Structure formats: structure tokens, C-alpha cells
């Protein structure tokens, strides 16, 4: 008995790659920058007591007591940050709370909702409406504010509290 022609074997359909569903992204508050990629970042749950020295841009969003030095780069103080610290940097952007003196050789930028209590010495300043500032402002010419790192005095106040703070010195200098 002749066999019926065999039906062509069904060809397997090519496997389609289904793109994964995009993960839901948490809503980002407009105007609140997150730590940019490639920038050294200290998150909002980190507590530091001591000294930070960075030789690259730094994003600091945690609690800090001591001194922060970013002599040739930008320091961004995030919206969750609470600093009781002396700060020295080329450029400082403040979105959180700072209690201490700030020296920014190039400029300081106080964004809306920033709170800064302390004296400012800088080449230029930008204050958005809504920012709170209490202290003195000394505009200095570029180069005039450059001083050795030892000249930045540590803050003696101890206003931060929290469990097991990191105590010591921290550096983001790649050569360390």
C-alpha cells in the first residue's frame, strides 16, 4: 500500500527573543540628581566620622562629621546628606544639610531645599530660591582661596548620632 507522502516535518519556529520587560523604575523626584555614574559616591545609609580626601568628583549623600577635601574636583552633597563638617573643594553643589564652613575655590551652588549654616569663602555663588543659608559670604578671586589642606580646621561639634559610625580617614585617591 502506497504510503501517503509524508507530510513535511513541521519546521520549528525560530525562537523569538522576547525582550525582558523593563524593570519598574522608582519615581525620581524632578530636580534631585542621583549619583552620576563613574563618580565616587557615598550612599545615604553611610555614616562617617573623620576625614575624606578625594582626588576625583565625589557624591556624598550620607552623614559625615569631620572634614571633606576635594581640592581639584566637584563635591556634590546629596539631598539626604547631613554634614557637620568643614568642606574644601573646587566646586560644591549642596542639596542637603551642611553645618560647617565651606571653601569652594571656583563656585558653590545652593540648590532649592539646601540648608547651609556656616561661612562661605568662594569664587562665585549661586543660590536658588528656597535654599536656606545662614552665615557670611566672602567672594575671593580665583587662586586667592587656595590654601594648603592643613589649613582646613576640623569641626569640633559632635551633632551626629547613629549606630557604629565609621571612624577614621577615608581617601578616594586612586594611588592609595
Amino acid at each position, binding site marked *: 500500500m502506497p504510503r501517503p507522502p509524508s507530510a513535511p516535518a513541521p519546521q520549528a519556529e525560530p525562537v523569538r527573543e522576547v525582550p525582558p520587560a523593563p524593570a519598574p523604575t522608582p519615581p525620581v523626584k524632578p530636580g534631585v540628581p542621583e549619583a552620576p555614574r563613574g563618580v565616587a559616591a557615598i550612599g545615604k545609609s553611610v555614616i562617617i566620622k573623620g576625614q575624606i580626601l578625594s582626588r576625583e568628583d565625589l557624591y556624598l549623600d550620607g552623614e559625615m562629621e569631620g572634614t571633606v577635601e576635594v581640592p581639584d574636583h566637584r563635591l556634590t552633597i546629596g539631598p539626604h546628606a547631613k554634614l557637620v563638617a568643614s568642606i574644601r573643594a573646587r566646586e560644591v553643589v549642596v542639596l542637603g544639610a551642611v553645618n560647617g564652613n565651606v571653601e569652594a575655590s571656583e563656585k558653590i551652588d*545652593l540648590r532649592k531645599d539646601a540648608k547651609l549654616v556656616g561661612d562661605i569663602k568662594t569664587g562665585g*555663588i*549661586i*543660590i*536658588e*530660591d528656597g*535654599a*536656606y*543659608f*545662614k*552665615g*557670611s*559670604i*566672602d*567672594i575671593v578671586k580665583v587662586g586667592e582661596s587656595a590654601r594648603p589642606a592643613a589649613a582646613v580646621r576640623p569641626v569640633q561639634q559632635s551633632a551626629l548620632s547613629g549606630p557604629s559610625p565609621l571612624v577614621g580617614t577615608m581617601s578616594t585617591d586612586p594611588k592609595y
Partner: protein
Amino acid sequence: MNDRWKPLTRADPSGGSRLAQYPPSQRPAQASVRGLEHKGGNDPTIYTRHSNGLEQFFGQIQTEPGLRILDLSGASQANIAFITSLGHKLYSEDLLQSLDLAFGDGDFYANQAAPARIEAFLEQSLNFPEDHFDGVLAWDVIEYLAPALLKATVDRLSRILKPRSYLLAMFHAEERADPVPEYYYRIFDSSTLLLSFRQVRRPAQFFNNRAVEKLFQSFESVKFFLTRDALREVIAKR
């Protein structure tokens, strides 16, 4: 409309080119001017005002750079830019906000009678060395001080001012204790202010000229500037 209260627009030849320094939402071109009346709404209202007192204040201190100026209206880009461009060092304090923080729980003016609170407020807000400042821009904040706090604050201001330096203050002219608009005072140029509406508050008391003279009796002299609107300007020389 009072000619001292005029809208500043982009077409204003005297100042239009400087509008770029203000955020778009606050450019005076958006302001609707009805004298001192605030019409509400979401847009902040800004008024421009010629100020002879301000002109005289900076006329007196402009002679030499490097002076210390205390601004009690809070930090603003305009005031920082203007004062530091003259070569002076600016000290910024938002005294009205500090008043609210210190006395705002309950009866605002009754709280200002408590000696301990007065002392704490002065330590927090006006804790400066004696003879520290070459000028104080007090704006209208003095009107919101009840008698006990008023005396203590003026004494403190007198103490932190250097001899022969100046204090600029403003007082509403209405003889009723109705609520009046509070403003942020922003310096547009040496004789022009931008007043940005803040809130409405009832002054602690009405100051006639005699009361103002008495208030600054420890100062060397008091000079009044007559205006055609509801805000009197006073310069007191320490």
C-alpha cells in the same frame, strides 16, 4: 496707581537687561502691581520700588570696600551679587524665619515676652562680636517684634554695629494694627528694590515717627525718608 510702585518689564530701559539674573518664575514681568496688595495665586508677585533709604545707605558705605554688611532678609542671589560686587563681605540671616522658629509655637507675640526665649533667640540669630558690622539691612523685621524682644533686639543691633555705621529699616505707615504683607527684600540696584511677597502678618505695634525716634534713641541720629506709599524708610546712624 502710585508711580513708585510700577511693574518692571523687559521693555524697561533702566533695568530690563538685568532680568536674566532672576528665575523665569520670578521675573517681574509676571507681576501684577496693585500697590501693596497681593492678589494671591501660584505665581510669586514681585514689586519694584525706588528706595531713597537704600540709596543713601550704600552712598554712605560705598566709599571703601571690605566692609561687613548684615542682611536680615535671608540669603538671595540678588543681594549677594550686589553687596559682594561692591567688595563687601555679606552676612546673611533670615530673621523672620528665625522668629517663627523661636516663637511660632502658640501665640507668636506672647512668646516674645519670655526672657529665656529672648536670650536664646538673640544667641541663635544675632550672636556677633561687638562693633562687628559696618551696616545692617534690617528691612521691616523690627515691626514684628513685641516690646520686650524689640528692645533687646535693638540693643543687640546697636552693640554689633560699629560707631558711625548705619542701619536701614522700614515701617508701614498704616495706623491700624491690620495684617500687612511681608516681603523678601532683593536689591536690584543701589536705589531700586524688588519686593517679593512672602506672607501676611500683623505687626506687633504701630510706629509713628516719634516711636521710631524713641526706638533708636541710643543711636546718634535717625533720618526719615518720605515716600508716597505705605512704607516709610529710616536710616539710623549708630
